[in-house]
């Protein structure tokens, strides 16, 4: 039990430098007014808060949350059965091959994969050969498909892990007490894989809600997500103060969501 004593301070330093101090800086910037990137006349100001009252930002938050929540749920609906099936495969080699099949795409650049979708979602694409013409760019569906395809492995793996480490004796105990396969799934396997579901939801929801490249390619400028706004404030208009305020609010929303999920996790029931 000596390792935690070394790891813990290192981890704390890491957290302070890379999370805590940047977060404080952002709070500081959110209450400041600067002239672009010229910080020499920095002063305290609530101007960012006035600006955020514009409904366009509320909509961006709403879009981000609704789209990434839908993508998370879709990932769960697709990912859970896949994880369950993989865990049922008895042959190790076959199981590993299937697991690798889900990891392999992650080795290629996300942007390239998104651009692949972008091409397919245009009315004129290679799909025309099959007599299919999609016109999805700019629709919420395009964004959700993009998110699901990008983050599905993050749902599959934690659920697979949770199911896999489930004590086989518990499943046998359930049969022993008279439960059939469906009842065993509902009363034993599903509740005991909830931790995997929670971490899967977290790991899909967080990057989906903050991603900006994905909506930028697939929204055709139609749908603005929060990631895009933060990106343009930091990268295009150099309004660090406002960008920080948007980020701080997003982080707070995510933080509250996580507390909610963790709390539910301890109870070990429901949410879905």
């Amino acid at each position: 039990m000596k390792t935690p004593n070394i790891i813990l301070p290192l981890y704390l330093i890491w957290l302070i430098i890379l999370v805590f101090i940047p977060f404080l800086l952002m709070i500081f910037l959110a209450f400041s007014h600067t002239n672009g990137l010229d910080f020499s006349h920095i002063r305290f100001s609530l101007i960012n808060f006035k600006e955020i009252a514009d409904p366009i930002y509320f909509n961006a938050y709403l879009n981000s949350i609704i789209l990434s929540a839908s993508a998370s749920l879709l990932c769960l609906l697709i990912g859970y059965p896949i994880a369950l099936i993989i865990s049922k495969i008895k042959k190790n080699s076959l199981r590993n091959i299937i697991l690798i099949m889900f990891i392999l795409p992650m080795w290629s650049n996300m942007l390239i994969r998104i651009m692949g979708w972008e091409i397919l979602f245009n009315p004129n694409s290679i799909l025309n050969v099959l007599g299919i013409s999609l016109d999805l760019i700019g629709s919420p569906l395009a964004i959700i498909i993009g998110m699901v395809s990008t983050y599905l492995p993050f749902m599959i793996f934690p659920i697979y892990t949770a199911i896999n480490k489930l004590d086989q004796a518990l499943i046998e105990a359930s049969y022993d007490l008279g439960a059939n396969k469906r009842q065993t799934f509902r009363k034993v396997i599903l509740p005991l894989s909830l931790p995997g579901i929670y971490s899967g939801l977290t790991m899909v929801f967080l990057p989906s809600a903050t991603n900006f490249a994905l909506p930028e390619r697939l929204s055709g400028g139609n749908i603005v997500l929060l990631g895009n706004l933060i990106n343009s404030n930091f990268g295009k208009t150099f309004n660090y103060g406002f960008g920080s305020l948007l980020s701080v609010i997003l982080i707070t929303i995510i933080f509250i969501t996580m507390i909610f999920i963790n709390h539910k996790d301890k109870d070990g029931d429901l949410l879905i």
Partner: protein
Amino acid sequence: MKKLIELKNITKSFDEQIILDDFNLYINENEFITLVGPSGCGKTTLLRIIGGFENTDEGHVVFDNQDITKLAPNDRQINTVFQKYALFPHLNVYDNIAFGLRLKKRDEQEINELVKWSLKLVNLSNYEQRDIDRLSGGQQQRVAIARAIVNKPKVLLLDEPLGALDLKLRQNMQYELKELQKKLHITFVFVTHDQEEALSMSDTVVVMNNGQIQQIGTPEDIYNEPKNRFVANFIGESNIIPGKYLGNKLVEFENAIFECVDTNFKENELCDVVIRPEDFDVVNLENAKIKGIVTDKVFKGVHYELCLDVNNKEYIIHTYEDAQIGSTIGLNVDAFEIHLMKVNSLENA
């Protein structure tokens, strides 16, 4: 007595390795039967076949005159107490015990009464709302038993249920399980590698090795009249000495002639003589038929365990009196303490 379970010609192998080899056994109603043997002898596999968790390669499982070989575990009137309890960690004590009853759609009032009844049987009243991970090993054990008996099965399978408990607790639970079995009139099939446990709890003991029955009988039979070297060595400690049956209830070993009670041997037939360590009498040297040098001694509380060198063979004897290492002591054995085994009996010890 009525036969409740019949195992007919059960054969089972994993990866070419034969675990059970043409195994036959019947289990009576209300019997406390114990399968005992070293690890890998097939006892747990046998239990899992009765429970329905393993298929047989060949053979049939008959329960109450019905062939249940292919029946799923959830359709059998059999419940199991698992080795590591297998309590559901997401449910509390009450919900764990009510699990089976709820599946049977009993009404909550009845479930409530039955759960309380079963908790009382295992001396855990008022633990209903406890979380599983806040129970000690012994308490978890009791909940596992309650969860099984609350369904009032005809047969309860117990897979080394006491293995993880400390000695004192284990002895208490042995006693309580025996009492429970008498009270509930349920057939208990108990699996253990602990021969002492097998002897102290069972009506019938089945000694297994290499997927076959070595001996089946009452605890007294098994202990006093082991059929072969394996049983003699596995059940309790034994001194096995080569000897010769002279006929007329006389046997010769260690250059001395002893009276015995066995008769099913031919004159001058070679045999193995089994004498339990506690069955030797230490006598003074003039009256002794066997003499040995004490090479080692261990104080065991009630008795001393002595290692003796008798004609270059090692003997283990139990005696109440102390002896000096290096001294020579004399031994005698009464006729009824001498058990003879056929030499050609299985030697897989």
